[in-house]
């Protein structure tokens, strides 16, 4: 089985605080992999290291076998590693059409066009329309994002990430804060992600994790504690101990 995303001995410190410790993680191509861990385990730092927002102090990150450890954020995206954001970081005054349009334009290499208007390239328009249709956003595509219901905003979050045509998608708590009435739409969108996209899900919600993931890694204090199938992880005594709050520092 080929490996889509791999970290080898990833390390990060903030001053005296060791937030990522010698983390080696393998995400198989096409996998539905979940990264879980208690609060403060360093999940967000891992995302920031993978996407290039933070520079690792040590270790290597491989995307489909190619070293991306020192690439800037936007190049990693164009290489096929995208993410969604946990809390809404969408463009409040841009419309879904414009937001998705930005991502599609950059991916197709038209993002630097300054002499023609957005909307003047048929291939870009078609891809925007296809994306918005898939995520049920066509009816609100011309409304400012800030005015959309929260559930729609979460869908747009996933839509933008998919618009970059990722090979590997990092989903950062996709359902966090979504009201129960809109939750089903999000779960359906997550379940309906294309199978050829490898997904690494970072999540607190155990129902979502166990219904979605075929592989789970448990992160504690910045280090990998356990990795295995959902069944193995669910019955692992160490994991139980962590989630019951007994601590593992000793």
């Amino acid at each position, binding site marked *: 089985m080929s490996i889509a995303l791999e970290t080898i001995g990833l390390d990060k410190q903030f001053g005296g605080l060791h937030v990522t410790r010698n983390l080696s993680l393998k995400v198989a191509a096409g996998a539905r992999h979940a990264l879980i861990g208690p609060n403060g385990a360093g999940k967000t730092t891992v995302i920031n290291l993978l996407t290039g927002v933070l520079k690792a102090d040590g270790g290597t990150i491989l995307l489909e076998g190619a070293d991306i450890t020192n690439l800037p954020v936007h190049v990693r995206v164009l290489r096929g590693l995208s993410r969604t954001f946990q809390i809404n970081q969408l*463009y409040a005054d841009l419309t879904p059409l414009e937001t998705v*349009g930005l991502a599609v*334009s950059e991916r197709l290499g038209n*993002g630097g066009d300054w002499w023609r208007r957005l909307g003047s390239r048929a291939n870009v328009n078609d891809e925007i329309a296809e994306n918005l249709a898939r995520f049920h956003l066509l009816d609100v595509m011309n409304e400012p994002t800030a005015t959309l219901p929260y559930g729609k905003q979460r869908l747009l979050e996933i839509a933008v990430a998919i618009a970059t045509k990722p090979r590997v998608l990092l989903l950062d708590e996709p359902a966090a804060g979504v009201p129960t009435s809109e939750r089903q739409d999000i779960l359906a969108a997550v379940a309906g992600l294309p199978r050829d996209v490898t997904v690494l899900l970072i999540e607190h919600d155990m129902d979502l994790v166990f219904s979605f993931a075929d592989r789970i890694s448990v992160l504690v204090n910045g280090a990998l504690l356990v990795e295995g199938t959902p069944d193995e992880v669910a019955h692992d005594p160490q994991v139980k101990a962590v989630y019951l709050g007994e601590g593992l520092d000793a």
Partner: protein
Amino acid sequence: MSNDHGVGEISLRRARWSAPETAFWLIAVASIFLFSDRYLILTEMAWLGLFALSLDLILGYAGIVSLGHAAFFGVGAYAAGLLAVHGIVKEPVLALLVAGLAATVLGFVTSFLVIRGSELSQLMVTLGIALLLRELANKFSNITGGFDGLQGIVIDPILGLFSFDIFGKVGFIYCLAVLFVLFLLARVIVNSPFGLSLRAIRNNPLRAAAIGIPVNRRLIAIYTLSAFYAGIAGALFTQTTALASLDVFSFERSADLLLVVVIGGAGYLYGGLIGAVVFRILQDVFSSWTPQFWQFWIGLVLVLIVLLGRERMHRGVLWLPRLVMRRFTDARRGSAASGKAAP
């Protein structure tokens, strides 16, 4: 035709000319005939408007703040002056382009210092660069004329056809034409994917990078373009006044420019132009009223704008024109509807 669910149509609609925009430029052209005794102040409004447009491009669209935009204005002004004095490029339009390019080079080089860092460091770096240039111009007085400014600037006829007259009519039409052309270019740019990506960067640079936008490259590009615009504005200033002295680099010029953009509002292209008109009128009114204290009143207006909120003030000022516009469009819609119903 492709079935894009109206995506293309909706995107293109945003960039269409609106009636108020057309009205704005018709009034600008009409001012050539309406205010034939006020060409000097109109000319100032035109190049100040262009200068403000230049700041709006980086401030309103990309979120880069500057307290030293006079650096580019000054380079453009001195370049135009030197080209004329030494007879290197005699034809004004060509000289204008060369002066603009000189500022562009400076903009490109300094962009690397400016785009990194917080707003505070942007303010300090831009301010520092302008002060530095002012001192350099002072130091190399054999080239720049130092405190006395460049002497003996004579501007040739535009395109070899139109000489600058003493009433300033040709100068004003020239400035207005240049402003209009560069405005059109700016309008194309802000409605492009490139322009949209700037708005995304201003909103949230981290997010912009996360959808594949090369943030630094875009910021360098717009900062460089903005320097070109400011350089052209400076060159227009020199060509229409035959002056280039140290104050083209002055801190007051950069600070006033920020006022102009704040008065007019940033991020919709017209803010700088409207701000330039309002600022010059206020300056004129206040200085004829109290020659010594006009800056006090300008300051007061600024404080009021910030406290009251520009939105609310615009609503007040635009109440009448909006009412007229609404009547106009209602009437048109009414006649269109009845025309459709008739057959």
